[in-house]
């Protein structure tokens, strides 16, 4: 019988329901996680050199529980995300144009198409590993932040996440979202002063994807 849907759709659905349990991203790392971090905006930004990032791992693992087995056990990762809190406001002729972060060079242009503002200033940012077994937080500010729970990867490089968007002690919205590379999520947050807070979440492209998938 001729199939009515393209193979990719079938493959994806198959992947989500049948292969979801198979660990695709096993990686031997300590529980501690390193993220890219840049200088306080709007100054110029520099990414953390890999050597420095690696150096922090042993220190972190020393803070783990006393059980040696627990210290060595790798936490399964499902990729990492970049989160930012952006303050959007109207264009101001006297103020200079806000610079976009290195992680997202065309941020202002794209946000301007989705929201009625012209000026987009990144107030805080946080790159966070998404753990398979644990919830993780993306906290670019104390005021609004995100809780993430992974529901596994999809075959097309997407990440099935349960997200909770929190403001203080109140969860504003809960969502099950499949986050895909190069396809950011813009969350319209509360208005503040002359503008609005916007939360940006993007799945980081993982260079080690193929290596991970090949791991037993």
């Amino acid at each position, binding site marked *: *019988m*001729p*199939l*009515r*849907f393209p193979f*990719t*759709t079938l493959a*994806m*659905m198959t992947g989500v*329901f*049948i292969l979801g349990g198979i660990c695709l991203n096993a990686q031997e790392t300590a*529980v*501690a*996680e*390193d*993220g890219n*971090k840049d200088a*306080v*905006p709007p100054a110029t930004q520099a990414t*953390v050199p890999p050597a420095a990032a690696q150096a922090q791992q042993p220190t*972190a693992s020393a803070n*783990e529980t006393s059980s040696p087995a627990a210290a060595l056990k790798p936490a399964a990762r499902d990729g990492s995300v970049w989160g930012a*809190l952006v*303050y959007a406001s109207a264009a101001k002729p006297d103020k200079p144009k806000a610079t976009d972060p290195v992680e997202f060079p065309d941020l202002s242009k*794209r946000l*301007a*198409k*989705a929201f*009625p503002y012209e000026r987009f200033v990144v*107030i*805080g*940012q946080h790159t966070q590993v998404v*753990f398979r077994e644990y919830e*993780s*937080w993306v*906290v670019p*500010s*104390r*005021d609004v*932040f995100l809780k993430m729970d992974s529901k596994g990867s999809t075959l*097309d490089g997407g990440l099935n996440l349960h997200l909770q968007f929190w403001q203080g002690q109140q969860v*504003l*919205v809960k*969502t*099950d979202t499949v*986050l*895909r590379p*190069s*396809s*950011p999520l*813009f*969350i*319209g*947050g*509360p*208005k*503040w*002063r002359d503008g609005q*807070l916007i939360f940006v979440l993007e*799945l980081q492209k993982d260079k080690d994807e193929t290596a991970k998938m090949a791991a037993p």
Partner: protein
Amino acid sequence: MKTPDDQLLARWLDGELSEQESARFEAMMAADPALREEAETLRAISASIREHVSFEREVPHADFFNSQIQERIAEVQRADERAHAPAASASGWFSWLRTPWALASAAAAVAVAFVVLRQERPSTQVLSLYAPNPNIQANAYHNADADATVLMLNGLESIPADHEIAGINVHHSEMEPQQGTTTLFNEQGNALLVMTKNGWDQPVVASR
């Protein structure tokens, strides 16, 4: 038009008179000072309008304006497609449905296919949304212009203007699963915040 003279005056103002009519009107104005005054006043008003008034006006948030129109156009196109979608033929559809795993994923596949078939590259998808606060309405859509998925929340309370919003740049975090805490550090290795949860499973953000 009240009188032929009024018509003449109007057409003189608009530069629509022929040479002969122009000459005639000039003569009329020379003979009638009141007419001349009226004509000159109206001409001055016209000139002022052209100088001071513009018909065109810059659209605020122009990119957003265009993008909103594109979204509504996409909605129109989707509605048209749904109205004209051909009914699934009996044999192919149902036999595919009978396979066990297909049954489980059939409903989801329909929704997904709509999205996958129309896009060259799959984008972030909001599968479900829930806003616990009844005053808040949550909606999500894919904005093709921005190439992003937008999650909108209506009914949020504004943050007071006197409240300072401080952003932080988190460099790395450390999780302590047994204690249920996550400590967030800056680049210098100083702890910025500690995330924990209280008895009601709510996050507690504490300074180090």
